[in-house]
């Protein structure tokens, strides 16, 4: 038995399980402080947040829908789900990743400044990525692009060489495939 990594009475043993990346949909009452409740649960218990988005999705019942992308071991992911579920304003927690690959989309605004060849190249590439121009002058473009995070990241990487000024991203909105709702 080695002296290191044997765990103890006080710390959870180091688990060797591989971490996975999962997307959760959380339906909550749209009441003051609910974002803080969800966010502080993650920080207080040491869980990761890779992306978090929220907006009211059911005006009549005043429900908001969170989409949270997080990583953890299967045991931690189950904990995250259970811990979220016991918050009082939470109606349901769904792990979209366990029930098949969910649809995940993101929107980004990408500002690119430049002149001459670079400017033309930026516009040409934007067309390839189906990004649309939402603001422009003779010296800049603001592109709006939607899609998977990987596509957006690729677009941003390319724009870096062509005069990227700034980026604003929404984070992921997601839902399960198929005819069923939450």
């Amino acid at each position, binding site marked *: 038995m080695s002296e290191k990594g*044997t*765990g*103890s*009475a006080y710390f959870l043993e180091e688990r060797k399980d591989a971490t996975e990346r999962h997307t959760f949909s959380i339906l909550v009452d749209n009441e003051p*402080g609910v974002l803080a409740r969800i966010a502080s649960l993650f920080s207080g218990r040491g869980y990761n947040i890779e992306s978090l988005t929220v907006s009211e999705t059911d005006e009549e019942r005043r429900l908001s829908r969170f989409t949270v992308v997080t990583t953890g071991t299967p045991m931690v992911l189950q904990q995250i789900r259970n811990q979220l*579920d016991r918050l*009082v304003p939470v109606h349901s927690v769904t792990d979209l990743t366990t029930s098949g690959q969910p649809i995940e989309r993101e929107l980004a605004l990408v500002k690119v400044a430049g002149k001459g060849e670079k400017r033309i190249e930026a516009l040409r590439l934007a067309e390839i990525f189906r990004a649309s121009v939402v603001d422009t002058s003779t010296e800049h473009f603001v592109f709006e692009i939607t899609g998977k995070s990987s596509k957006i990241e690729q677009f941003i990487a390319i724009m870096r060489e062509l005069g990227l000024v700034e980026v604003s991203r929404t984070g992921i909105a997601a839902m399960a495939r198929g005819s069923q709702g939450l």
Partner: protein
Amino acid sequence: MQCAFLLKKGYPMARTMTGAEMVIKVLADQGVEFVFGYPGGAVLPIYDEIFQQEKVKHVLVRQEGGAVHAAEGYARSTGKVGVVLVTSGPGATNAVTGLTDALMDSIPVVCLTGQVPTHLIGNDAFQECDTIGITRPCTKHNWLVKDVNDLARVLHEAFYIAKSGRPGPVVVDIPKDVQFATGTYVTPSNTAIAHKSYRPKLKGDQPLIQRAVELMASARKPIFYTGGGVINSGPKASQLLRELVRQTGFPITSTLMGLGAYPASDKQWLGMLGMHGTYEANMAMHDCDLLINIGARFDDRITGRTDAFSPGSRKVHIDIDPSSINKNIKVDVPIVGDCAYVLEDMIRAWRGLASSPEKSALKGWWKQIDQWRAVNCLKYKASSDVIMPQYALERLQAHIKDRDTYISTEVGQHQMWAAQFLKFDEPNRWLTSGGLGTMGYGLPAAIGAQIAHPKSLVIDVAGDASILMNIQEMSTAVQYRLPVKIFILNNQYMGMVRQWQQLLHGNRYSESYTEALPDFVKLAEAYGGVGMRCDHPADLDDAIKAMLAVKDKPVIFDCRVAALANCFPMIPSGKAHNQMLLGEDVSAEEIDKAIGKEGKVLV
């Protein structure tokens, strides 16, 4: 027309009143008899209402922290919700420790806090703090009420949330202008059915219960490991637990929080388990082939090293909180439900087994357990010159065993000794800070219990360091003529800190010796209570008798005990259940060997 519609829908009769009136009305409608609190600017309208009625009695503490612990003691000893009323700012921040304590130990508490008027919120007003922000992680839920018309509904909901499912503390923050404003009162509706998102699952899944019972029927080395959840579930759960344990003939152990759910005087009882649990309980946990966890949470003080915890067993876990299951220890049969419901179904399933299991199959297991018991792990070196702390508690137990007694404790060595040497045969009799380990819990908790049970004997087993953390509550006890007995095992050290420094830090007693302790006898007298001192084993019995005879006022009993006694058995840091250090004969060398380098760096 509209009114008829509302009534038909089950909506209650509406009445108009001020927010402050509503607070009192809700308390009365919820059956609250006592509120523990401390007034201040932001709750004056509510205190004005308290003054003008007699239904709800107010107990004035001396610091808000004491109010929450008193409410916890009241709640734990009655099974009802404890209620706290404090002002904004420092009133609320002082309550934070108690709220966290109640959260960790699942104690139902409704804490009402005053807040500065809504138009001043966010302005850094006098005695303003972000109470909701500060208490969010230390409550089960909390609310800021900005509209008086929401107040009654929120308060009723607060009671529902505090006591249902896994109980816990809640905070309702009420700005002063809302207390003055006039609005519509609603009586408690059936919140349980009506609540839109919080409806805890009470009944366990039948197939899982059946699976658990089948495992029980075929087990050869089974053990019940029960916790505070059984007590929180109510007296019926304890009753059912006893029935199931007797029917099965299995041994049973419990966590610190679960003491009393099963009678300590019974032959199937192995004593408490965990870091300072008995040898037989820990060895049985380690060697069992089936572990049935009922309302406990595999806390780190229980499991020791998780990767060496009960390695050869199948594990059943019954808990009302799904997040407690598979958190620390992976289990084979997870059952989400209230202990009483699940126990009832388990008993039915056990009776319904095709062939009733032979109790004789457990003979070998019991023989093994008897061998462990024969180790007599709680033995200690007696002394005729100095009072050993264990001896003091043995004598205390002898004097209280036939009495109607509630015991609270502070936190430290005395707490563990009390758990080991005092015997609890009924639930709700043992009030201690388990999860958070809050020094200063015991005296206010004893006050809360004594308020609830004025004719019973209430004893706070204390340490000389812990008692000073909320000593101001002596004044409360005197005011309400509460005959709380404060039994201090005075060794002039923060005993548990000193013990760890001895075992883990080369005897360097850094800041764990209290150089200037007060004269506890004079201190008691200064508050208007009774002070007593005993420093010789020969005088102890008479002194305890004298302490128990005191009526109508609190007693501080300064029991001077051996200064350097250690609390054993002990599972050292980073070790498994079968690597316990046993009592009196442990040498420094053995300790050094037992606690590896790894262990020394751990808390």
